[in-house]
């Protein structure tokens, strides 16, 4: 049983959003009493709307990515559960200024089901809604079935690119093309050292024996691909990078953004030790780091572990990625 500082378990998501909005009232506002977070300065004229969202419990995803040069709205479901269609539909109505809206979210069955229903509802009213699915997690399906892969820690970079490019005035079709390229160029893999719990119950969603770690474990305890004895930071970084480099593949001379993401209870000390190895290993491979982001971007409660994301850049992507 994991100890948590919470109130009524049924109010988790509502209270999370209330707290975040009080803290950031100059930047964001809430749409009615829904679990929808909007930019405070909406409506924004002449800009394609960017809506992100998914289950709660992965903070700072998704709400902390709403703002200028980021998303216009974030839609939150309950803990680890997709948001219902009425929320996304309300967000689309709030964000659309006539140039259309992009739903940018991670590829999970529940999210796809719910976002698709909302998309249909809005399209029926003549709003141009397009979808870009994030599927950067390489262990969740082989490369031949990339469309089955889950979305994970490419999110923070994708949200930034989507925000900046829409702010710059790109039309919806160019944005969809740009974002699909950014998704394709992004590959992630993580390793878990301990389970995450469901905050409503305090119970772990899976168990991992003492002394073991598991590659490819999902953000909700989805089974991984390889369970091994605990490895050193250097060996871990190298193992993950080998899988990622091989998957795209990333080549000598490529320029990349690196994300080193902590899952929740992994310390910044460990993240920087991992980061150190990533720099030296990519250097050995002749892959150039344009920028790196180290921290917690997509967590899974108190799960221990890290994930690494590489996104291959070209001139167009670089233009819309603000360091």
């Amino acid at each position, binding site marked *: 049983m994991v100890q948590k500082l919470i109130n009524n378990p*049924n109010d988790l998501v509502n209270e999370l959003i209330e707290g975040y909005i009080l803290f950031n009232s100059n930047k964001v506002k809430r749409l009615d009493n829904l679990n929808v977070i909007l930019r405070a300065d909406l409506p924004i004229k002449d800009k394609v709307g960017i809506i992100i969202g998914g*289950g709660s419990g992965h903070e700072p995803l998704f709400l902390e990515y709403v703002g200028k040069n980021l998303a216009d709205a974030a839609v939150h*479901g*309950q*803990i*680890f*559960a*997709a*948001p*219902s*269609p*009425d*929320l996304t539909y309300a967000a689309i109505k709030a964000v659309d200024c006539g140039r259309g809206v992009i739903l940018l979210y991670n590829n*999970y*069955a*529940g999210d796809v*089901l*719910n976002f*698709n*229903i909302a998309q249909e509802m809005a399209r029926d009213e003549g709003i141009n809604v397009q979808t870009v699915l994030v599927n950067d997690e390489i262990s*969740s399906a082989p490369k031949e079935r990339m469309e089955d892969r889950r979305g994970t820690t490419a999110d923070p970079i994708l949200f930034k690119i989507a925000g900046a490019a829409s702010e710059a005035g790109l039309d919806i079709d160019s944005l969809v093309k740009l974002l699909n390229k950014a998704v394709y160029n992004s590959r992630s893999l993580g390793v878990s050292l301990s389970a995450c719990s*469901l905050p*409503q*119950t305090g*119970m772990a*969603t*899976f168990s991992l024996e003492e002394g073991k770690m598991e590659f490819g474990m*999902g953000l*909700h*305890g*989805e*089974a*991984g691909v390889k369970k091994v004895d605990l490895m050193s930071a250097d060996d871990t970084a190298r193992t993950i990078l080998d899988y990622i480099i091989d998957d795209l593949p990333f080549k000598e001379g490529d320029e990349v953004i690196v994300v080193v993401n902590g899952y929740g209870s992994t310390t910044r000390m460990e993240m920087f030790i991992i980061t150190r190895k990533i720099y030296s290993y990519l250097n050995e491979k002749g892959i150039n780091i344009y920028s790196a982001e180290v921290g917690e971007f997509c967590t899974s409660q108190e799960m221990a572990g890290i994930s690494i994301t590489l996104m291959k850049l070209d001139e167009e992507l670089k233009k819309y990625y603000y360091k």
Partner: protein
Amino acid sequence: MKNYLDLNDFKEIIVLINSIIDENKEYLSQLDSVIGDGDHGITISSGFKDTIEKMKEKQFESISELLIFVGNNFMATVGGTTGPIFGYLFLEMGRTQESNKEKINLNDLFIMFSQSLNKIMKIGGAKPGEKTMVDTLNSAVNSLNDSVKNNDNLEIALKKMNEAAKKGLESTKNMVATKGRARYLGERSIGYQDAGATSTYFILSAFSKILEKN
């Protein structure tokens, strides 16, 4: 022997579903934690609880109206995969012509459940044999179809449907998951019963229990 279900029966069925699911929510979450993410029981029970509370405050003119309300409210409250899948179970039943009748007979009920099954398979992309709730629902619908052909009394037909649903549910134990989160386990998912298929069985069991009670 009563040979139909009316608006009042359907209301009682929804109330009964809520109590059966509530009694079994920990069991459902436990099933889900083995091959899913462990929240199914809490998620589905909170959806029915909210629906029941709102249902009690409302007046319904027809079975169709009731079922559409239940489906929409469930979908809006729950989200996740459970929201649309189980929301459509009721919503599609309520969208049939048959659900506008005052008395639902066996053939009507067969048509209503068939429409739900087809819609769920379409939106969820699952077919029978993939270790999902479709396995329970499909067995139940096949059984209703047989009962229509046999001219069974509704009570008998629902009893048979209940047994068939249970068989469908139990068949998920030996299947390999290819849909949802359990698919990442592949062959390792064999031996475990699917949580969504289990709650579908609980939902269907309420239909036969209502007639037994009467």
